[in-house]
Protein backbone atom coordinates (compact mmCIF):
# COMPACT_ATOMS: atom_id res chain seq x y z
CA UNK A 1 0.00 0.00 0.00
CA UNK A 2 1.42 3.37 -0.87
CA UNK A 3 2.28 5.63 2.01
CA UNK A 4 1.02 9.16 2.37
CA UNK A 5 3.92 10.71 0.51
CA UNK A 6 3.58 8.30 -2.36
CA UNK A 7 -0.05 8.90 -2.91
CA UNK A 8 0.37 12.64 -2.84
CA UNK A 9 3.18 12.39 -5.32
CA UNK A 10 1.28 10.02 -7.53
CA UNK A 11 -1.74 12.23 -7.99
CA UNK A 12 0.20 15.39 -8.61
CA UNK A 13 0.46 16.82 -12.07
CA UNK A 14 2.93 19.50 -13.02
CA UNK A 15 1.27 22.87 -13.16
CA UNK A 16 1.61 25.15 -16.15
CA UNK A 17 4.38 27.58 -15.40
CA UNK A 18 6.67 25.08 -13.75
CA UNK A 19 10.01 25.53 -15.38
CA UNK A 20 11.04 21.97 -14.94
CA UNK A 21 9.53 18.76 -13.76
CA UNK A 22 10.45 17.94 -10.18
CA UNK A 23 7.88 15.18 -9.91
CA UNK A 24 10.50 12.44 -9.70
CA UNK A 25 12.15 13.93 -6.63
CA UNK A 26 11.42 12.86 -3.07
CA UNK A 27 9.83 15.35 -0.71
CA UNK A 28 13.17 15.72 1.03
CA UNK A 29 14.94 16.52 -2.23
CA UNK A 30 12.34 19.10 -3.16
CA UNK A 31 12.62 20.69 0.28
CA UNK A 32 16.40 20.79 -0.15
CA UNK A 33 15.83 22.86 -3.29
CA UNK A 34 13.36 25.04 -1.42
CA UNK A 35 15.94 25.66 1.29
CA UNK A 36 18.24 27.06 -1.39
CA UNK A 37 15.63 29.52 -2.52
CA UNK A 38 14.27 27.59 -5.50
CA UNK A 39 10.79 28.96 -6.13
CA UNK A 40 9.93 26.24 -8.63
CA UNK A 41 10.53 23.72 -5.87
CA UNK A 42 8.19 25.63 -3.57
CA UNK A 43 5.61 25.43 -6.35
CA UNK A 44 6.17 21.69 -6.45
CA UNK A 45 5.57 21.41 -2.70
CA UNK A 46 2.40 23.41 -3.15
CA UNK A 47 1.27 21.16 -5.98
CA UNK A 48 1.85 18.10 -3.81
CA UNK A 49 0.26 19.34 -0.59
CA UNK A 50 -1.83 22.38 -1.46
CA UNK A 51 -5.12 20.53 -1.81
CA UNK A 52 -4.78 18.48 1.35
CA UNK A 53 -3.60 21.61 3.15
CA UNK A 54 -6.53 23.66 1.90
CA UNK A 55 -9.05 20.92 2.66
CA UNK A 56 -7.71 20.71 6.20
CA UNK A 57 -7.60 24.46 6.72
CA UNK A 58 -11.12 24.91 5.40
CA UNK A 59 -12.36 22.12 7.64
CA UNK A 60 -11.02 24.02 10.63
CA UNK A 61 -11.68 27.67 9.84
CA UNK A 62 -14.88 27.24 7.78
CA UNK A 63 -14.06 30.24 5.64
CA UNK A 64 -12.37 30.13 2.27
CA UNK A 65 -10.47 33.35 2.66
CA UNK A 66 -9.16 32.41 6.11
CA UNK A 67 -8.29 28.94 4.87
CA UNK A 68 -6.24 30.43 2.06
CA UNK A 69 -4.51 32.71 4.54
CA UNK A 70 -3.60 29.70 6.66
CA UNK A 71 -2.19 27.84 3.67
CA UNK A 72 -0.28 30.87 2.45
CA UNK A 73 1.30 31.48 5.83
CA UNK A 74 2.17 27.82 6.26
CA UNK A 75 3.93 27.76 2.90
CA UNK A 76 5.76 30.93 3.79
CA UNK A 77 7.01 29.04 6.83
CA UNK A 78 7.98 26.10 4.62
CA UNK A 79 9.90 28.49 2.42
CA UNK A 80 11.66 30.14 5.32
CA UNK A 81 12.50 27.06 7.32
CA UNK A 82 12.94 24.10 4.99
CA UNK A 83 16.67 24.04 5.70
CA UNK A 84 16.20 23.92 9.44
CA UNK A 85 13.56 21.26 9.09
CA UNK A 86 15.80 19.05 6.95
CA UNK A 87 18.47 19.23 9.62
CA UNK A 88 16.01 17.56 11.99
CA UNK A 89 15.29 14.60 9.70
CA UNK A 90 11.55 14.70 10.20
CA UNK A 91 8.89 13.55 7.78
CA UNK A 92 8.06 16.31 5.27
CA UNK A 93 4.33 15.67 4.94
CA UNK A 94 3.95 15.63 8.71
CA UNK A 95 5.89 18.87 9.05
CA UNK A 96 3.99 20.70 6.33
CA UNK A 97 0.58 19.64 7.60
CA UNK A 98 1.61 20.47 11.17
CA UNK A 99 2.39 24.01 10.01
CA UNK A 100 -0.92 24.25 8.17
CA UNK A 101 -2.81 22.96 11.19
CA UNK A 102 -1.13 25.37 13.55
CA UNK A 103 -1.90 28.34 11.35
CA UNK A 104 -5.51 27.29 10.89
CA UNK A 105 -5.97 26.76 14.61
CA UNK A 106 -4.36 30.11 15.38
CA UNK A 107 -6.69 31.83 12.94
CA UNK A 108 -9.84 30.09 14.11
CA UNK A 109 -9.08 30.86 17.74
CA UNK A 110 -8.50 34.47 16.86
CA UNK A 111 -11.72 34.64 14.88
CA UNK A 112 -13.70 32.57 17.36
CA UNK A 113 -15.20 31.00 14.31
CA UNK A 114 -14.71 27.35 15.06
CA UNK A 115 -17.38 24.77 14.98
CA UNK A 116 -17.29 21.19 16.01
CA UNK A 117 -19.29 19.12 13.61
CA UNK A 118 -18.17 15.51 13.52
CA UNK A 119 -16.22 14.87 10.37
CA UNK A 120 -18.71 12.40 9.00
CA UNK A 121 -21.40 15.04 8.98
CA UNK A 122 -19.30 17.67 7.28
CA UNK A 123 -20.86 18.88 4.07
CA UNK A 124 -18.17 19.76 1.61
CA UNK A 125 -18.42 23.30 0.35
CA UNK A 126 -17.15 22.54 -3.13
CA UNK A 127 -17.31 19.64 -5.48
CA UNK A 128 -14.07 20.54 -7.15
CA UNK A 129 -11.95 17.62 -6.01
CA UNK A 130 -13.45 15.27 -8.53
CA UNK A 131 -10.19 14.09 -10.06
CA UNK A 132 -9.00 12.29 -6.97
CA UNK A 133 -7.40 8.99 -7.66
CA UNK A 134 -9.12 5.95 -6.26
CA UNK A 135 -6.24 5.22 -3.94
CA UNK A 136 -6.37 8.73 -2.51
CA UNK A 137 -9.93 8.05 -1.48
CA UNK A 138 -8.77 4.69 -0.18
CA UNK A 139 -6.13 6.37 1.93
CA UNK A 140 -8.71 8.71 3.36
CA UNK A 141 -10.80 5.70 4.20
CA UNK A 142 -7.85 4.13 6.00
CA UNK A 143 -7.58 7.10 8.34
CA UNK A 144 -11.33 7.41 8.78
CA UNK A 145 -11.57 3.69 9.48
CA UNK A 146 -8.81 3.94 12.07
CA UNK A 147 -10.66 6.83 13.70
CA UNK A 148 -13.83 4.76 13.87
CA UNK A 149 -11.98 2.02 15.71
CA UNK A 150 -11.03 4.31 18.55
CA UNK A 151 -13.07 4.24 21.75
CA UNK A 152 -15.76 6.91 21.28
CA UNK A 153 -14.56 9.16 24.07
CA UNK A 154 -10.99 9.15 22.72
CA UNK A 155 -12.17 9.79 19.20
CA UNK A 156 -14.39 12.62 20.35
CA UNK A 157 -11.57 14.37 22.17
CA UNK A 158 -9.17 13.99 19.25
CA UNK A 159 -11.64 15.17 16.64
CA UNK A 160 -12.77 18.17 18.63
CA UNK A 161 -9.16 19.14 19.25
CA UNK A 162 -7.81 18.56 15.76
CA UNK A 163 -10.75 19.59 13.58
CA UNK A 164 -12.47 21.95 15.99
CA UNK A 165 -9.38 23.78 17.21
CA UNK A 166 -10.39 23.51 20.85
CA UNK A 167 -7.78 23.66 23.58
CA UNK A 168 -7.66 20.90 26.17
CA UNK A 169 -9.12 23.25 28.76
CA UNK A 170 -12.00 24.17 26.47
CA UNK A 171 -12.59 20.48 25.84
CA UNK A 172 -12.66 19.72 29.54
CA UNK A 173 -15.31 22.36 30.01
CA UNK A 174 -17.28 21.42 26.92
CA UNK A 175 -17.28 17.72 27.75
CA UNK A 176 -17.71 18.19 31.48
CA UNK A 177 -14.63 16.15 32.31
CA UNK A 178 -11.54 16.87 34.41
CA UNK A 179 -8.59 18.20 32.43
CA UNK A 180 -6.57 15.12 33.31
CA UNK A 181 -9.22 12.91 31.75
CA UNK A 182 -9.12 14.90 28.52
CA UNK A 183 -5.32 14.65 28.40
CA UNK A 184 -5.48 10.91 28.96
CA UNK A 185 -8.09 10.42 26.25
CA UNK A 186 -6.10 12.37 23.69
CA UNK A 187 -2.88 10.59 24.60
CA UNK A 188 -4.33 7.08 24.56
CA UNK A 189 -6.33 7.85 21.43
CA UNK A 190 -3.46 9.30 19.48
CA UNK A 191 -1.19 6.40 20.39
CA UNK A 192 -3.87 3.90 19.41
CA UNK A 193 -4.45 5.78 16.17
CA UNK A 194 -0.74 5.52 15.40
CA UNK A 195 -0.90 1.75 15.91
CA UNK A 196 -4.00 1.39 13.78
CA UNK A 197 -2.42 3.38 10.96
CA UNK A 198 0.70 1.24 11.14
CA UNK A 199 -1.44 -1.90 11.04
CA UNK A 200 -3.16 -0.54 7.94
CA UNK A 201 0.17 0.00 6.22
CA UNK A 202 0.37 3.74 6.59
CA UNK A 203 3.96 4.05 7.76
CA UNK A 204 6.59 6.64 8.42
CA UNK A 205 9.13 7.06 5.68
CA UNK A 206 12.58 5.73 6.35
CA UNK A 207 14.13 9.00 5.28
Amino acid sequence: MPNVTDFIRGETQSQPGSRRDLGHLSDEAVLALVSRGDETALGEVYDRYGRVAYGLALRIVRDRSLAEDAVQEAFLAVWRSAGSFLAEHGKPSTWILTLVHRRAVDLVRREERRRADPIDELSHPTGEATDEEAWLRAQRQVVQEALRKLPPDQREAIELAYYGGFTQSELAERLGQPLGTIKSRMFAGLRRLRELLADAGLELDAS
Partner: protein
Amino acid sequence: MVHEEAAAFALDALDREETEAFEQHLAACPDCDAALEELRFAAAALAFAVEPLVPSGSLRPRVLDTSAQVIPLPRRRRHPRLLGAAMVAAAACAVVVAAVRPWETADSQVGFRRYDAKGANATLLVSRSGEAVLAARNLPPLTAGTVYELWVIAGDRAHPAGLFRGPIATLTSPVPRGATVAVSVEPTGGSSRPTGPLVLRAETT
Protein backbone atom coordinates in the same frame (compact mmCIF):
# COMPACT_ATOMS: atom_id res chain seq x y z
CA MET B 1 8.49 8.63 30.72
CA VAL B 2 6.34 10.27 28.08
CA HIS B 3 4.02 12.92 29.44
CA GLU B 4 0.42 12.86 28.30
CA GLU B 5 0.56 16.51 27.39
CA ALA B 6 2.68 15.50 24.38
CA ALA B 7 -0.49 14.34 22.63
CA ALA B 8 -2.27 17.62 23.29
CA PHE B 9 0.82 19.38 21.96
CA ALA B 10 0.81 17.26 18.80
CA LEU B 11 -2.89 18.05 18.31
CA ASP B 12 -2.33 21.80 18.88
CA ALA B 13 -4.71 21.55 21.83
CA LEU B 14 -2.56 23.63 24.16
CA ASP B 15 -3.08 27.33 24.58
CA ARG B 16 -0.20 29.70 24.04
CA GLU B 17 1.16 29.58 27.58
CA GLU B 18 0.84 25.79 27.79
CA THR B 19 2.58 25.48 24.43
CA GLU B 20 5.53 27.55 25.55
CA ALA B 21 5.77 25.62 28.80
CA PHE B 22 5.67 22.30 26.99
CA GLU B 23 8.33 23.40 24.51
CA GLN B 24 10.60 24.15 27.43
CA HIS B 25 9.76 20.78 28.89
CA LEU B 26 10.58 19.11 25.57
CA ALA B 27 14.09 20.48 25.59
CA ALA B 28 14.69 18.70 28.90
CA CYS B 29 12.68 15.51 28.31
CA PRO B 30 14.19 13.15 25.72
CA ASP B 31 11.30 10.68 26.16
CA CYS B 32 8.69 13.23 25.14
CA ASP B 33 10.90 14.50 22.35
CA ALA B 34 11.32 10.98 21.00
CA ALA B 35 7.62 10.16 21.27
CA LEU B 36 6.57 13.35 19.57
CA GLU B 37 7.43 12.26 16.05
CA GLU B 38 5.00 9.33 16.21
CA LEU B 39 2.30 11.44 17.84
CA ARG B 40 2.74 14.11 15.22
CA PHE B 41 2.53 11.54 12.47
CA ALA B 42 -0.78 10.31 13.85
CA ALA B 43 -2.06 13.88 14.21
CA ALA B 44 -1.01 14.88 10.69
CA ALA B 45 -2.61 11.73 9.30
CA LEU B 46 -5.91 13.19 10.48
CA ALA B 47 -5.43 15.81 7.76
CA PHE B 48 -5.83 13.04 5.21
CA ALA B 49 -9.21 12.05 6.57
CA VAL B 50 -10.55 15.34 5.24
CA GLU B 51 -11.46 15.58 1.58
CA PRO B 52 -8.73 17.46 -0.27
CA LEU B 53 -10.11 20.56 -1.95
CA VAL B 54 -8.87 22.67 -4.79
CA PRO B 55 -8.23 26.21 -3.58
CA SER B 56 -8.85 29.15 -5.85
CA GLY B 57 -6.36 29.48 -8.66
CA SER B 58 -5.06 32.71 -7.18
CA LEU B 59 -3.62 30.98 -4.12
CA ARG B 60 -0.68 29.37 -5.90
CA PRO B 61 0.67 32.66 -7.29
CA ARG B 62 -0.02 34.28 -3.91
CA VAL B 63 2.08 31.65 -2.18
CA LEU B 64 4.91 32.04 -4.67
CA ASP B 65 4.77 35.84 -4.85
CA THR B 66 4.90 36.23 -1.10
CA SER B 67 7.78 33.84 -0.80
CA ALA B 68 9.66 35.57 -3.60
CA GLN B 69 9.96 38.59 -1.33
CA VAL B 70 11.27 36.67 1.65
CA ILE B 71 14.72 35.19 1.83
CA PRO B 72 14.85 31.59 3.10
CA LEU B 73 16.73 31.21 6.34
CA PRO B 74 20.08 29.50 6.11
CA ARG B 75 20.29 25.91 7.17
CA ARG B 76 21.58 25.63 10.70
CA ARG B 77 23.91 22.90 11.75
CA ARG B 78 23.13 21.31 15.05
CA HIS B 79 26.71 20.32 15.57
CA PRO B 80 29.18 22.83 14.27
CA ARG B 81 32.40 21.19 13.24
CA LEU B 82 35.97 22.45 13.27
CA LEU B 83 35.47 24.15 16.59
CA GLY B 84 37.11 23.49 19.89
CA ALA B 85 35.02 21.90 22.59
CA ALA B 86 34.56 25.15 24.45
CA MET B 87 33.51 26.91 21.31
CA VAL B 88 31.12 24.11 20.50
CA ALA B 89 29.52 24.51 23.90
CA ALA B 90 29.29 28.26 23.50
CA ALA B 91 27.95 27.91 19.98
CA ALA B 92 25.39 25.35 21.15
CA CYS B 93 24.09 27.81 23.70
CA ALA B 94 23.88 30.48 21.03
CA VAL B 95 22.08 28.09 18.72
CA VAL B 96 19.51 27.31 21.38
CA VAL B 97 18.75 31.00 21.64
CA ALA B 98 18.94 31.82 17.95
CA ALA B 99 17.89 28.53 16.41
CA VAL B 100 15.02 28.44 14.01
CA ARG B 101 12.61 25.89 15.39
CA PRO B 102 10.88 24.61 12.32
CA TRP B 103 8.09 22.72 14.09
CA GLU B 104 6.66 25.76 15.73
CA THR B 105 3.99 27.98 14.36
CA ALA B 106 4.62 30.08 11.32
CA ASP B 107 4.77 33.08 13.59
CA SER B 108 7.31 32.06 16.11
CA GLN B 109 9.32 29.59 14.11
CA VAL B 110 10.39 32.14 11.56
CA GLY B 111 10.61 34.82 14.20
CA PHE B 112 7.58 36.56 12.76
CA ARG B 113 4.91 38.31 14.66
CA ARG B 114 1.66 38.54 12.75
CA TYR B 115 -0.80 41.37 12.91
CA ASP B 116 -4.12 41.97 11.24
CA ALA B 117 -4.74 45.40 9.83
CA LYS B 118 -7.67 47.69 10.40
CA GLY B 119 -9.37 49.26 7.42
CA ALA B 120 -8.39 46.58 4.93
CA ASN B 121 -8.00 42.85 4.60
CA ALA B 122 -4.28 42.78 5.26
CA THR B 123 -1.66 40.96 7.25
CA LEU B 124 1.58 42.41 8.54
CA LEU B 125 4.46 40.08 9.32
CA VAL B 126 7.31 41.52 11.37
CA SER B 127 10.54 39.65 12.06
CA ARG B 128 12.40 39.89 15.34
CA SER B 129 14.80 42.33 13.74
CA GLY B 130 11.95 44.53 12.55
CA GLU B 131 11.92 43.56 8.89
CA ALA B 132 8.34 43.57 7.73
CA VAL B 133 6.19 42.40 4.88
CA LEU B 134 2.64 43.54 4.29
CA ALA B 135 0.16 41.43 2.35
CA ALA B 136 -2.94 43.45 1.55
CA ARG B 137 -6.00 42.52 -0.38
CA ASN B 138 -9.02 44.59 -1.32
CA LEU B 139 -7.22 47.91 -1.07
CA PRO B 140 -9.18 50.63 -2.83
CA PRO B 141 -8.05 50.80 -6.45
CA LEU B 142 -5.46 53.43 -7.28
CA THR B 143 -6.39 56.24 -9.59
CA ALA B 144 -3.97 57.52 -12.22
CA GLY B 145 -0.98 59.31 -10.79
CA THR B 146 -1.21 57.75 -7.34
CA VAL B 147 0.61 55.06 -5.42
CA TYR B 148 0.33 53.39 -2.02
CA GLU B 149 2.91 54.58 0.47
CA LEU B 150 3.90 52.71 3.61
CA TRP B 151 4.50 54.45 6.90
CA VAL B 152 6.07 53.33 10.12
CA ILE B 153 4.58 55.46 12.88
CA ALA B 154 6.48 55.48 16.15
CA GLY B 155 5.70 58.10 18.75
CA ASP B 156 4.19 60.94 16.78
CA ARG B 157 6.47 60.60 13.78
CA ALA B 158 5.63 58.87 10.51
CA HIS B 159 8.63 57.50 8.62
CA PRO B 160 8.15 56.70 4.94
CA ALA B 161 8.73 52.97 4.40
CA GLY B 162 8.32 52.47 0.68
CA LEU B 163 5.91 52.67 -2.24
CA PHE B 164 3.90 49.86 -3.77
CA ARG B 165 1.10 49.10 -6.16
CA GLY B 166 0.64 45.32 -5.85
CA PRO B 167 -0.80 43.22 -3.03
CA ILE B 168 2.55 42.53 -1.37
CA ALA B 169 5.02 45.08 -0.08
CA THR B 170 8.30 44.85 1.77
CA LEU B 171 8.84 47.72 4.14
CA THR B 172 12.06 49.63 3.59
CA SER B 173 12.20 50.81 7.21
CA PRO B 174 12.35 48.52 10.24
CA VAL B 175 9.23 48.24 12.39
CA PRO B 176 10.04 48.54 16.10
CA ARG B 177 7.70 46.86 18.57
CA GLY B 178 4.75 49.04 19.40
CA ALA B 179 4.95 50.96 16.15
CA THR B 180 2.01 51.35 13.83
CA VAL B 181 2.26 50.55 10.15
CA ALA B 182 -0.06 52.51 7.90
CA VAL B 183 -0.71 52.86 4.20
CA SER B 184 -1.86 56.03 2.50
CA VAL B 185 -2.58 56.93 -1.09
CA GLU B 186 -0.01 59.43 -2.33
CA PRO B 187 0.92 61.06 -5.63
CA THR B 188 3.28 58.98 -7.77
CA GLY B 189 6.76 59.35 -6.36
CA GLY B 190 5.48 59.36 -2.81
CA SER B 191 5.44 61.98 -0.09
CA SER B 192 7.70 62.68 2.86
CA ARG B 193 4.71 62.58 5.18
CA PRO B 194 1.19 61.24 4.74
CA THR B 195 -1.02 63.57 2.72
CA GLY B 196 -3.61 61.24 1.21
CA PRO B 197 -6.27 59.07 2.83
CA LEU B 198 -5.09 56.30 5.16
CA VAL B 199 -6.39 53.04 3.73
CA LEU B 200 -4.87 50.60 6.20
CA ARG B 201 -3.49 50.61 9.70
CA ALA B 202 -1.81 47.82 11.66
CA GLU B 203 -0.72 48.26 15.24
CA THR B 204 2.12 46.10 16.54
CA THR B 205 2.63 45.09 20.13
